[in-house]
Structures are given as C-alpha cells and as structure tokens.
C-alpha cells in the first residue's frame, strides 16, 4: 500500500462570514510517502488546509466557507473517511468518542463499513502499533493525556490511512505525554509508507519527522518550500520574527531576580480532595494534595511543576485564595497580612482581586463583560477609581499590550495570543497601585507563539522587578531556566522544592 498524492492548484479558502482569505493561490504537490511540515504564522490557515485535505470543508461539512482553485487527493476531490485519510488534532479529549479504548478504535472502522469479523484484529493491531499499554476494555476516561492521544492515533491508523494529517499532535500534552506521542510518530515516520502532513509551530517537535518544509503566508500561498535545513537557513529568522518557534532563533527568558523578597503567602498542612461532581464517588474522593507546605515570596518567580493531573492548578487556586483547602490553611504574610489577617480563602472577592491576580489557562473563563475596554475598566471601577484615572490607566494598558485597535470588540472574538494578553491585563488592571501584589498564572505560555511568549515573559520580569510575587503552574522548559527563582515540584500528592532550585 503506497501513500496518497496531493495536488493543489491556485487553491484558496475563506471562512464563512470573513472578509479575508485564510489562504489563497496555494500551488503545492506532495508525492506519495512524502512527510511534510507545514509552517506559517498564527492565522495562516494551516489547520484549514489540513481540514480541507481531510474532506471536512465544503457545503455539506462542519466547516463552511468559500473555496477556489482545485485540491485533489490521488486525483480526486478530498473525501472524508473513505478516501483513507486520518486526522489527529491537538486535544485528545475532544477526539475520543467511546467509553472503552477498543470500542473507540473500532469506531472509524464501523463508520467505513468494515466487515465486523475483521474489526477485532485491526483494533488489536492498531493498539499494538502505538504501544498502548492496556487492554481494549480499558475506560478511556481513566487514561493519561499521552495515552489518550496515542489512542486517537490508533483510531486513525486502524483505518489504514494513505494520508495522515497531524495538527499539533503534542500541543496539549505534558512533557511525558508529548514524549510518548513523539516516539510513536517517529516510528511511524520511519516505517509507514503513508503520506504525512504535520502542522506544528514548535519546529523542534516535528523537524525530525519530516523531509520537507512548506511555509505558507496568511491570505497568501506557499512562500518557501524545500528540505528543512535549506528552508530554515533562508527563512529561519523571518519565521521566528513572525512567531514561529525556529531552533536557534527562540526568544530567551531574562535571568533570576538574584534575591527574593519577604514571604507573602504560606500554605501549611494543606489537603485538597478531588472535587465532587458527576462520576465521582463522594466516599472515595482522590486526595490531590496531601498535607503540603508551600510559600510564595515577593520579588521572585515561583514555578509549580509536575505531570498533568498532579495538582498544580489545584495548588494555584489555593495559593490564590480562590478555593479553601479541605484541611490546613493558606495564610497571608508580610504586606498581605497587614491588609487582612484571615486565611486567603475567607477574604471577600473584591479585596482578593485587588491584591492577588489569577490568570486562568483558558483566558475566556475569566472574561465577564462584552468588550475589551469594559473588561479592563471592570476592576478599577469596582475599586472605586474615578473615571479620569480609570480611562488613563486603561488606555495605558491597551497600548502596552497592543490591544488599542481592539478596544471595542468582544473578548471572545480575539485570537489566542490576544486573549492571553487581555487576561493578563485584566489581572493587572485592579488595585490602587495598578497591579496586585501577587500574580498567579496557570500555564501562561501554553500554546503561545514566540512573539506573545517574549512579550509575556518581559512583562512578568518587570512585575517581579517591582517587588511583586509571580507564581506560575507550568511545564514550559524555557520558563524553568534561569527565570525561575523557586521551583516547587507537585507530584504524588506532595510538594517539594525541585532539585537545583533556589538558585
């Protein structure tokens, strides 16, 4: 079985209701068995091109819009499923359909009408191919992120695709999960004869898998095409300037603070149980954090690290006074204790927001108004600042985070990077001193392009320089370098200073 041949001639796509073309005038030919990395700045329509190749765009499909030019897979218009095309997207959570692992792999086979006699064998084969460590009856809910994504890949492989499309397949995983998936993809690249197209803005993740790099331009077509070494030598710097993570051109984080300030928050003997909810037995709730100790100091960056699900976010919400521990206490110290001596979880929300700012992983979760400007005015107004001062401060923030032209749009319509900048800005907009004493961030750099990353880190370094405490739950290796003053590792229910921390 050989790979599929892809051919695009003057191809373009414009999403329904949009003025600009996502891509236009794309001329591209990919030979059977070629492995191509598709690169371009955010918003360059790379995912759209993958969806089009998977046959998911068009009048009767989930993704509607206007198409021009021609696109063919093996000389015929792209057709989903039956054309032997497999697609793996970022988040495994929204790609698994069934409750049991084996049933999920079988789902695609059932859809294309595979003889039921053959399905069992194909499922076992696909599970073995991705090194799935459990039986086919394993509950998909009980898998780690890396296992889930390998299951998604198995689901695609079971259909024996001649064209495999990968849309940032490791973006939503923690480092261990990403390593597992990378290992599977590396083996596939070496052994499979299928044509592969990968979209990935962190070049280092994918460059070892491909033999060709194609660069596209938002609203345009192919601007560079060739072997990886050649493309990066010629266009590396330009791509990096547009936010692509090119090896050798990555932005660097500033160094450590040198000396840390006084402690502002101290958690003692904190226990947190798994929250109640559907599917959780109230008598057998998992202990997420077990009598942990942690402290946060001013003028310093504290990083919370550890595998996904180990309780980094839970610890962050405890330290931020958003939730109360099931046992133990989270107390303010130093300057914060002079504001209110009570446990942080008992502070009124208004006071809390003035002194502690929390930035959530999904920026949308914390938007509470209908325009970018209102979003920034929200905290100063509640803090009782007069209209003139508020307007001046909001204008300054808008300017600083390059959001001025977007002041009147709905926060939900912003791009990923803009949403991140706005969510940080809203956390900074509160309080008489224009910023809280402590800023807590959950995976602040997650999924950000190199430009947003550099701006964000510069801003955090500046806040730290002003004496504030910066706390971040993260597994971004670049943030964990010299920029981190204290690293607390959260794993197995405990919290401990990481080896080599306290630089």
């Amino acid at each position, binding site marked *: 079985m050989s790979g599929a041949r892809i051919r695009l001639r003057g191809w373009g796509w414009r999403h329904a209701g949009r003025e600009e073309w996502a891509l236009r005038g794309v001329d591209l030919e990919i030979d059977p068995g070629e492995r191509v990395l598709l690169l371009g700045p955010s918003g360059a329509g790379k995912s759209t091109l993958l969806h089009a190749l998977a046959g*998911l765009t068009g009048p009767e*499909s*989930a*993704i509607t819009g206007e198409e021009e030019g021609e696109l063919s897979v093996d000389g015929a218009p792209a*057709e*989903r*499923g*039956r054309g032997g*095309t*497999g697609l793996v*997207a970022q*988040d495994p*959570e*929204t*790609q*698994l*359909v*069934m*409750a*049991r692992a084996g*049933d999920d792999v*079988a*789902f*695609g*086979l*059932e*859809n*294309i*009408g*595979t*003889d*039921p006699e053959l*399905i069992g064998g194909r*499922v076992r084969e696909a599970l073995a191919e991705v090194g799935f460590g459990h039986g086919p009856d394993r509950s998909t*809910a009980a898998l780690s992120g890396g296992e889930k994504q390998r299951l*998604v890949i198995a*689901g*695609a492989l079971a*259909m024996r695709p001649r064209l495999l499309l990968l849309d940032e397949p490791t973006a939503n995983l923690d480092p261990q999960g990403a390593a597992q998936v990378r290992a599977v993809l590396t083996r596939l690249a070496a052994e499979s004869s299928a044509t592969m197209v990968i979209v990935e803005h962190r070049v280092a993740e994918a460059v070892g898998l491909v033999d060709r790099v194609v660069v596209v331009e938002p609203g345009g077509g192919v601007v560079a095409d060739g072997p990886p070494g050649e493309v990066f030598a010629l266009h590396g710097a330009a791509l990096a300037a547009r936010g692509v993570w090119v090896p050798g051109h990555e932005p660097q984080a500033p160094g450590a603070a040198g000396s840390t300030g006084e402690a502002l928050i101290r958690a003692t003997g904190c226990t947190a149980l798994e929250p109640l*909810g*559907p*599917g959780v*037995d109230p008598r057998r709730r998992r202990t997420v954090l077990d009598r942990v100790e942690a402290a946060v100091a001013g003028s310093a960056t504290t990083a919370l690290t550890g595998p996904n699900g180990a309780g980094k976010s839970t610890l962050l*919400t405890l330290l*931020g006074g*958003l*939730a109360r521990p099931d046992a133990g206490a989270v107390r303010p110290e130093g300057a914060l204790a002079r504001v209110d001596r009570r446990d942080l979880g008992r502070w*009124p*929300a208004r006071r*809390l*927001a003035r002194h*502690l700012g*929390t930035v*959530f992983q999904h920026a949308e*979760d914390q*938007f509470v108004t209908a325009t970018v400007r209102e979003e920034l005015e*929200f905290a100063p107004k509640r803090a009782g600042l007069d209209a003139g001062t508020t307007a001046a401060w909001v204008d300054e923030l808008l300017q600083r985070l390059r959001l001025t032209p977007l002041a009147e749009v709905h926060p939900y319509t912003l791009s990923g990077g803009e949403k991140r900048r706005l969510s940080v800005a*809203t*956390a900074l907009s*509160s309080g008489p001193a224009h910023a809280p004493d402590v800023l807590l961030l959950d995976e602040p750099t997650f999924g950000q392009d190199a430009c947003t990353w550099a701006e964000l880190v510069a801003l955090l370094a500046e806040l730290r320089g002003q004496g504030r405490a910066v706390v971040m739950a993260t597994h971004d290796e670049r943030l964990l370098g010299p920029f981190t003053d204290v690293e607390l590792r959260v794993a197995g229910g405990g919290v401990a200073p990481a080896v080599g921390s306290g630089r």
Partner: protein
Amino acid sequence: MTGVLRRRNPAAKIIAALLVAAGLIPAVDPVTAGAVLAATALLLPFAGLDRRALLTVGLPLVLAAFSVGLVNLLFGESGPMTAFGLAVRLLAIALPGVLVALTSDPTETADALVQRLKVPERPALGVLAALRLIPLLAGHWRTLTLARRARGLDAGRNPAALAGQFAGKVFALLVRAIRTGTLLATAMDARGFGTGPRTHARTSRWSGADTALIAGTALVLVAAHLLSVRLGTWRLLFS
C-alpha cells in the same frame, strides 16, 4: 442472581419500562399501581445496584410522589383515594425507568437502540459521545466559579447579583460546550462518521430471558388490573 437485570438487553428493559408506563397511565387507583410497584420492588435485590446510587435517584422521586399526592389531596376533587393513587402511580411508572438507567451500560444501550430498536445512528452515537463530555463540563463550571472570584465578583446574598452572575456563567459554559461539541463532531466526521452504512463491531444480543422480561411485565400489568377489578377499586382516568 444479582446482576440478572444488568445482563438483560437494554432494549428489552426500555420496552418493559415503556409498557409499564402505557399500562398504568389510564389507571388512577392505588391498587393497580401499587401491585406493579410491589412487583418492581421485588426485582430490586436482583438488580445488582449500588445502594447509594438508588438512594440518590430514589429520594427525589419519593419526594415528587409525595408532593403530587399532597397537592391532589388538598386541591383535587376526586378524594384521598385518587390522590394516593396518583402518587403511587408516579412511583410505579418512574421506578422501572430508574432501573433501566442504573443497570444499563451506555455503550450497550446505544448498540441496542441502533441494532434492536432501529434508532438512527447519528442521534444514538451523538448522545453517547456527549455523555463523555459531562464530567468535562462539570470541571469547566467549577473553573468559571473560581474565575468569577478571581475577578472580584462576589454576589453575596443579593439575589439580583446572584442571578446576573449565574447567567454570565451559563453563557460562558454554553460557548465552551458548543466549541467542544464542534471539535468532537469534526473528529467524528474525520473518521468517516455519516459517510455511508455502518457495520457494528459489537452485536447487541437478544436472549430468551429478554423476551421473558417483556412477557413477564405484560403479565404483571394484566394481573394488577384484574386484581383491582376484583377488589372493586379499579378506576380509570376521566371516569
């Protein structure tokens, strides 16, 4: 013997529960419904149920039945017997439904609906896929609550502020749910869902015991009606 109900084909259980509802809706006397309820209760030890799960679903049902009875007793015009009958009937119709839900595996139920009851694939599998997302949405709701506190929003005891905040959270959750649902639908489409006739990796098996369950249910219903006629308590709706 435990798990006898769990092993029945979900389609048989659904048909039996619907049969009970159809057979009891016209009868408003406590004896007919009471006899069916007693027969269903006899099944409970063999359902292999978690007592806590039964209590969680059962308690609100008993409360609902109690309030239906009370309202009819206080404001109804048909007397205490009918009020009591309506309360018992509600329990007798609802309990089989609860048993179906608690003793059926969602995947097997979807298979049975599609293969045995010929329900179209798209809604059946759509609901099954959506079930996976419920714990995810519960997590989102928690995050939204924490995020409101982080922004300094604290409704306190002001009902207007509480309602406003609740509406805001519902909107945010809806946006997230739609986005998640769209991604899932795209992933399902990418795997060829809806491109033509499907085959089935799992076979929804029908055994003699499944037929017996339906026949038994019909027998119990007929017996309950006959018993009530015999006792002179039989009363139909609108009679």
